[in-house]
Structures are given as structure tokens and as C-alpha cells.
């Protein structure tokens, strides 16, 4: 699905990613954990194509294509989806209009016709149920005035609508109440198939109780310093990052 090799990225002259290696196959769930500021969101932004970062070294192959050569929109059209840690508000653009445009541009990219209005609305109905998103929210402006939890739910609703191959969920659990966490996690699990893959970025085991990862990686100072199975997350939850920090302290 995606293969990241020795990825280095910086902003200005500050290097944030210092050689990331990660291989995710179809059907897998990977969790990325790590202390604040270690570069988790930067990794997802770089993969999604945010232009603020310079990729200085390394390569990323996504379904056989050189991901770094693609524009942000083409990455999405190829099936990459990023659920933002901080979804932004876009006043004046309705969720529905936004999603219809997105869906149809993705379809056009794959040589498919526009989706009929009726089918689109049926899809909206079906997918909003999946994350129990209030139908009213779908017709409002993108994230405008949404509560923190509603914004996160809306991200997963969009994911359900666009049906990506690889979804990167950047702290989708933060800000969700206990019920919402379960609803969102159940939604993500329902969207899971042998043909797609998920990377969940999180600080907490409780999300991983629902979305059970095949692999867990610890990101620290721009590198994956430790990888393991789902038990690694439990270990980190119990012990914290002190050991890791000591072991991998790098002089800046």
C-alpha cells in the first residue's frame, strides 16, 4: 500500500522528520504513538502534501506511484485520506456541496461519471448513520461552529464518503467523549477491508482497545525508534516515554 523510505522533512532550516521508514500493507492497521512534538502530525501532513514542508531526502511509494510527485489533490484522488488533528472551519462552504465536489472530482480522475444526486444523497444518509452524525450537520458549513467532537466525527464521515485506500487518522480520538469514541471507532472498523489500510496516530490505549492495531510504532524526534505488536502500546501506556527518551536523546 505505502512504503516510506528514509523520509526527511524540514520546515525552514529545522529538520523535523529525520529518516522515517514505514511499510504498510493492504488490510493492516498501524498505530503511531510518541511524545508531543515528535513529528507525528508532520509525517501525516507531508504524506498528504502540505507545501509548508520541504522533503529533503527519501522516497514514498503509494500503490506503485511516487507519492511525492503528486499534488495534494491527486494524492487524495489516488486514495490517501488524512483525518486532521485540527479540522478547520470553512464558513460559507456547505458540507454537502464540499463532499459532492470532492467525490465527483475523485470519480472524474478515475474516469467515472458524476454521481446522480439521488445516489449521492442516499450515500450521505447511509454514511452519516455510520458515525451517527446529525443530518443537520451535513448541511451546515464545513465544521463551522461544530464542537470539537463533532469536527472529529465529521472527519470520519468524510472518510466514509470518500472510501480511501489508506486513511491516516491523526488523533481522531482526542476531544471525543466516551460514547463518541466508541461510535467513531466502530465506524472505522466497519470501513475496514482487506483492500484498505489505516494508520492511527494516538496517545491513548483506549482507542486501540477498539481499533486493534497489527503494528505499533513509536515516533521520537522525527524517527521511528521502536516497533512492535499491539502489546507495545500497552507497555508505553504503563511506562511512559522516559526510557525511550533516554535511549534516543539526540543533541539538537
Amino acid at each position, binding site marked *: 500500500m505505502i512504503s516510506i523510505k528514509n523520509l526527511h522533512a524540514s520546515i525552514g532550516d529545522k529538520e523535523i522528520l529525520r529518516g522515517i521508514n514505514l511499510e504498510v500493507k493492504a488490510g493492516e492497521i498501524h498505530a503511531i504513538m510518541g511524545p508531543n512534538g515528535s513529528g507525528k502530525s508532520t509525517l501525516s501532513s507531508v504524506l498528504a502534501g502540505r507545501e509548508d514542508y520541504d522533503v529533503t531526502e527519501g522516497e514514498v511509494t503509494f500503490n506503485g506511484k511516487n507519492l511525492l510527485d503528486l499534488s*495534494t489533490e491527486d494524492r487524495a484522488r489516488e486514495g490517501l485520506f488524512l483525518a*486532521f488533528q485540527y479540522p478547520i472551519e470553512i464558513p460559507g462552504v456547505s458540507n454537502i456541496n464540499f463532499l459532492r465536489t470532492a467525490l465527483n*472530482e475523485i470519480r472524474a*480522475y478515475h474516469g467515472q461519471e458524476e454521481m446522480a444526486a439521488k445516489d449521492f444523497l442516499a450515500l450521505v444518509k447511509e454514511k452519516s448513520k455510520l458515525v451517527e452524525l446529525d443530518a443537520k450537520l451535513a448541511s451546515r458549513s464545513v465544521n463551522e461552529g461544530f464542537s470539537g467532537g463533532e469536527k472529529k466525527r465529521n472527519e470520519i464521515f468524510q472518510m466514509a464518503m*470518500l472510501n480511501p485506500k489508506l486513511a491516516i487518522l491523526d488523533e481522531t480520538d482526542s476531544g471525543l467523549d466516551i460514547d463518541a469514541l466508541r461510535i467513531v471507532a466502530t465506524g472505522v472498523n466497519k470501513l475496514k477491508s482487506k483492500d484498505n489500510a489505516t494508520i492511527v496516530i494516538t496517545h491513548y490505549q483506549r482507542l486501540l482497545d477498539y481499533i486493534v492495531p497489527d503494528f505499533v510504532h513509536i515516533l521520537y524526534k522525527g524517527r521511528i525508534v521502536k516497533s512492535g505488536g499491539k502489546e507495545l502500546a500497552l507497555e508505553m501506556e504503563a511506562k511512559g516515554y522516559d526510557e525511550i527518551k533516554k535511549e534516543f536523546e539526540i543533541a539538537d
Partner: protein
Amino acid sequence: MSLVADNKSAVTQTLLDQLQSKSSKVAFMPDAEIISAIRYLEDKGIPNNKHEDYKYCNIEAVLRKEFKSVEQAFNELTNSDIAPLKIDEAINLVVVNGVYSEELSEKMIVKGLTVKSLNELSSTEKALLCSQAKSDTDALIALNTTFSANGLFLQIDKNNIIPMPLHVIYVNSGSANIVTNTRSFINVQANAQATLIESFYNIGSAKVFSNFVGEKFVGENAKLTCHTFQNEGALSYSVNTNQVKINKYSNYSNTTMTLSGELVRNNHNVVLADSNCEAHLNGLFISSGTQQIDNHTLIDHQMPHCESNELYKGIAKDKSAGTFNGKIFVRKDAQKTNAYQSSKNILMSDDATINTKPQLEIYADDVKCSHGTSTGKIDTEALFYLKARGIGEESARKLLLQAFAQELIDKIEIPSLQERVLHLFEKAL
């Protein structure tokens, strides 16, 4: 006789000479106003960039450069020229090169509605002319008064509500460079209500300098809802001055949509002359190329318990430029005034500029006034969010700009006008 005796400005001199030799004498304007207009022009000349109010909008330079010789070769227009400009759900009235055309206008008998030419005014009606647009306040008003064509008078008699919108189509057309001085007077008497659309067009391949002055009166407890639609094209240079006076318990609103024009200068001046009235001024423009679109407003709160609201937005592309200059006076008797003003702008290129200048002068102590301006680039975070969902750069930009403009487009309550604006707006993006 030369109008300008002691050569204040060569441009003014030339223009006035040319107009004087090619225009018929204005009979319907009060003599005193014409005299004071000529004096004002002699004294001040046509404003250039040294004039505070015209700092970014050098009218003199435009005249010098584009209208060195004014042919006044006016084209006649026919119904087929006008048909595409009409609005179905409205009564369409037509003013060609400043002259009200009864022939091209739709004839409909509507209770309480009077439509006629300025030279047909009764003496009481005539006395109203220039009462709001004083010649000695602005050179463009003075120029208009001096050379005014036989424009339009529109009156809604007291206690009448006009059930459909009135659409005035102001269209200019010349076979060589022309200068038009279009004048209109709209009088909404007490307890009357009307919805008005004023559209500005330029047909043909000649350059036009259009100097429009509209006087509007809104009587006690009356309501006038205006829409100004400007789509004059690349050959047009226009100054549109609206002098509005509103009375006790009345409600006046105007939304100006500027979709094209090489130079567009809008002066919208509203006097809230009595208590408990409200004025709402809105505007949206999108400019490209080397266009310049200026909106100047003046809200004059003279009496207590009144409200004013202003919302202006602009999108400037390429090397285009815009200005929003909003003056608010709150006179000492105007206690309990609420006055709000906001100007938001988006620059689509590094070469585009928009200048904003709010000016509040408050002489009363118990008032609520606020103003805010912002000018910036399109929101890159929002752009990234849309692109990250598979939406291409082009359509992402369009979505955001449409969202930016939507609240103003929503203010147009006439469906086919809204459609027309939306269509042109999308095309201009």
C-alpha cells in the same frame, strides 16, 4: 464664452468646452444650481490624486488619457439591444446615454407609480431637484448638473406598495468616445414601498465616461430596497454618485454588485435625517486586469435612534485595485445610534491592491459604533483542506471565493438578478 475663466485645469477646460459645444442647454435644472456648479468647476476643476477623496482614483488623469476628444457620437438603441438586459419579473425602464426612453421602457399602469422625464416635472417636483445633490459639494455632481441629460423621474405616491421590482436599465452606447451625464430622481413618499434595481451597461466598441448622479428620497415610514448592478465592461469609466436622504421610521437599503468596468467609482452618501430610521449599504466587487473599483460611502446620522449597517467585500485579481472608504458621522443629536461597518477583501495576486479606510466622526456620547477591515490572501489552510479531499486547486479556490461572496449574493432577493450576478461572478473567478 469659456466656462472656465481662469484656467484652473486644462483638462477641465477642454472637457467643458467640448461638452458645451456638443450638448443642448439643460432647461430643467434650477438656474442657481447651474451657476453654482460652474463656479465650483472653475474653482476646483476635475479631481485628481491630490484631492483627498480621489487619492486612488485620478479622474482627471482618466479624462486626459482616454477622453482627450469627446465626440458625443451617441448611438440609438432598439428593443433588441435592450431585450437581453431586461429582468423578467420587473417593470423595465430604459435610460439611453442619460436620456429616459419612454419608447424602450415597458408601459404598465401601476397604482401610485409615476415615471417621467426630468423635463416634464411640475414646479413642485422641480424644486426637489438638486436638493440632495448640491453642486457645490463635488465636482462630478457639478459636472452632472451642468450637462445633465434628460433623465428619469420616478415617484411612488404615499401609501402605495409597488408589487413588482422596478428595473432601471442605464445603458450607454457611442460610436466614438462619449461622456454621459445621467441623472435620476427617485422619490418614495410616506408609507410607500418599492424595490428598485439599477443596472449599468455599456453597449458597443467606444469608450464611455459615465457620470451618474442619482438622488433618492425615502419618506416617513417608507421603504426602498435597492440593487445596483454594474457590468459596464472594459471600455467603461464611470462615477456613480448616489445622494440619499431618508426620513423618520424609514428603511433604505442598497446592495451594489460590481462585475466589470475599467474604472468604477461609487459614491454612496446617505443622510439619516430624522429619528428611528435605518440604512443598509452592501457591496461586492470582483476585479481583474488593470481595473479599479472604488466604493466610497458616507453615512450621516443626524438624529437619535437610528441604525446603519455596511458590509463591503472585494476580490482583486491580477493588477487590479480597489478602495473602500467609509465615513460615518454621528452628529451631536444622534444619541442611541447603532452604526456598524465592515470591509473584507481578498487579494488574488501579489500585484493586486485594496485600500480600506474607515473614518468615524462621533459627536454624540451614547452610541454604539464599530468598524472592521481585513485584506488578505485566500486562506491557505482552507485551500489545503479542500485539496486534501481530492478537490483541484481551481475548484477549491472557486469554492472559497464563492463562500466569501455568498452572504452578499444572498442579499439579492430577486431570483433572476441573483442568477445573473452568480453567473457573471463565477465567470469572473
